[in-house]
């Protein structure tokens, strides 16, 4: 049976090697991604096992009596072996049962559900706005290389790259919400059940903070890639045949400069996954990051486990997307190497 079917897939592959570069990359990356997530889930679970005492005594803290401890241990299945606990946790996750908060006994999915959307809105807005600003500024700086505009932007980028999110956030609050002007709210407290985009003024400062933090990376990469592209023969050719300056920039140089920048844009999105934690905390924005900080303060292990796993899954997905998009932006790499 195996002898009959085995040669079949090889024959077309030999005729047209790498006919499906997208599928190949997707399958390979997806495989690694699932493996990564599996190992991350083991690590996240193992973290709860090294807890001094156990999760039950940590949850009860000084309200622990032997009877309450015992009841909670049974509720949390702590009386079973570590492997059995891991297995029931993992199968629960795959069935959509994400566990129960130790602190208030609510299910993790009810605590986290709405927050995922809020954080997604924040990250997407910051990521998209930051990318557009970074790409445009990088293009302009490269087009006017060594002008005061270019030097000024480079110095600002160098300085801003190094700033922690909470420093940027406090600076923005100082200028726009507290000391200089009072045009924006200093915290983004949403009434329960209200979606973040329904009160846009509350989104301005958190998004602006994240944008300021990620723009320098995109800007610097874009500027460097654009300078490379502008020094190439095809741009020289386009200029010599009398094409307008902006057309050369947008039509010839930009598509070639964007490919290396896509990696940086991907990294920026990954960076946002960590950046939202502090920004949501500063502005009291009801998202995953704020939930994570609260859960860490309360040592609410099931909530922490789930959020960390969610962020790891985000990492895997963004990496795959980055690979596929940069493959799409670099036609050269799609050709068979022969």
């Amino acid at each position, binding site marked *: 049976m195996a002898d009959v079917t085995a040669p079949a897939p090889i024959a077309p592959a030999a005729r047209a090697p790498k006919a499906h570069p997208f599928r190949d990359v997707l399958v390979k990356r997806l495989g690694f991604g699932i493996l*990564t997530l599996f*190992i*991350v889930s083991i*690590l*996240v679970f193992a*973290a*709860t096992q*090294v*807890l001094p005492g156990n999760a039950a005594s940590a949850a009860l803290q000084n309200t622990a009596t032997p009877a309450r401890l015992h009841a909670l241990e049974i509720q949390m299945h702590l009386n079973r072996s570590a492997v059995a606990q891991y297995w029931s946790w993992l199968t629960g996750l795959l069935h959509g049962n994400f566990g129960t908060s130790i602190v208030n006994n609510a299910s993790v999915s009810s605590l986290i559900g709405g927050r995922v959307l809020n954080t997604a809105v924040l990250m997407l807005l910051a990521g998209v706005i930051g990318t557009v600003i970074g790409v445009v500024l990088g293009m302009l700086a490269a087009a006017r290389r060594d002008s005061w505009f270019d030097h000024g932007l480079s110095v600002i980028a*160098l*300085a801003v*790259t*190094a*700033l*922690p*999110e*909470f*420093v940027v956030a*406090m600076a923005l*609050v*100082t200028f726009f919400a*507290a*000391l200089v002007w009072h045009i924006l709210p*200093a915290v983004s407290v949403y009434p329960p059940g209200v979606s973040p985009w329904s009160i846009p003024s509350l989104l301005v400062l958190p998004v602006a903070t994240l944008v300021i933090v990620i723009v320098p*990376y995109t800007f*610097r*990469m874009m*500027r*460097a*890639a654009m*300078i*490379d592209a502008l020094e190439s023969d095809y741009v020289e050719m386009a200029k010599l045949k009398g094409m307008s300056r902006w057309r050369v920039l947008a039509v010839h140089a930009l598509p070639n400069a964007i490919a*290396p920048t896509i*990696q*940086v844009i*991907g*990294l920026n999105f*990954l960076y946002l*996954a*960590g950046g939202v*934690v*502090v920004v949501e*905390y500063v502005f009291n924005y009801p998202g995953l990051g704020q939930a*994570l*900080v609260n*859960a*860490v*303060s309360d*040592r609410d*292990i099931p909530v*922490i486990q789930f959020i*960390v796993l969610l*962020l*790891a899954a985000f*990492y*895997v997905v963004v*990496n795959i997307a*980055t*690979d596929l998009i*940069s493959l799409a932006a670099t036609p050269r790499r799609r050709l068979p190497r022969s």
Partner: protein
Amino acid sequence: MASSAALAVLQSAGRGRARRREWAAVLGRAVRTPRGATGLSIVGIVVLIAAIGPALTPYSSTQFVTAPFANPSGTFLLGADVLGRDVLSRTLDGGWVLLLMAAVATLLGVVGGAICGVCAAYFGGHWDTLIMRIVDIVLAFPQLVFALLLVSVLGPKIWLIVLAVGISHAPQVARVTRAAALDVCERDFVRAAQILGMPARRVLRREVLPNLTSVLMVELGLRLTYSILVIAGLSFLGFGLQPPAASWGLMINENRIGLVANPWGVLAPTLLIAALTIGMNTLTDAVARASLGVGRQADDALLSGISAAGAVQ
């Protein structure tokens, strides 16, 4: 015959040993540029404040001396904080732990990462695959989140935060070092040392590592900046030095409700952290420019913390 040729190659590459002080030379060249000089002086001032500050505090940093959020006055130059403690004293006292933690975490991360990266490049094969897979997995945790996970399990202990930040640096350092070491390991003098039967540890230490000096210096600077960022961030979130101790990140969080009443409680630590990271980044930039004779793109990619290895190979 092979070994005499190998010996000749090794002797001609003897400058590898003569360049033992290369890091000093690179640093010297870097601080003579305007960027390097600016970066070094900013970092120097902040480090000085943090280091000798605790000896200069006019009041105890944990003592209640006046009304909460009192405005700056002749006796309390920067006013008072949320509990009526002297902001100037707390600012002078609140930096050295951050700097010490960042320095140790950076050393841990860069040394650990460099060892992993060099070994992956030199031994290759299964070692390479194994090390790089582990790197991929650790990278799936955002740095801050990784530290938060450990803190949630073991509590906000100083050593734990240092360890967590160190571990979370190692993968990036390993990637960059591996990429650079792959080039070095291909070179003749490494081959020659191998042919002469030099043990792997010695080849790595005497032939490979000296040629990674500039790469590691840039990594050291970058990771130090990120260590300060993450540790100050954790402290801001309340997972660092615990109150009533003074710490810049913690001060910003404690005093931000009084931003209008007495802005100095927030501004002083914020400005110091900002100056420290900007200065550090500027200095690192100057070091990278002084040491790497590479194209602008690789240069910029490296400086923006992306690493020559890239996210995807």
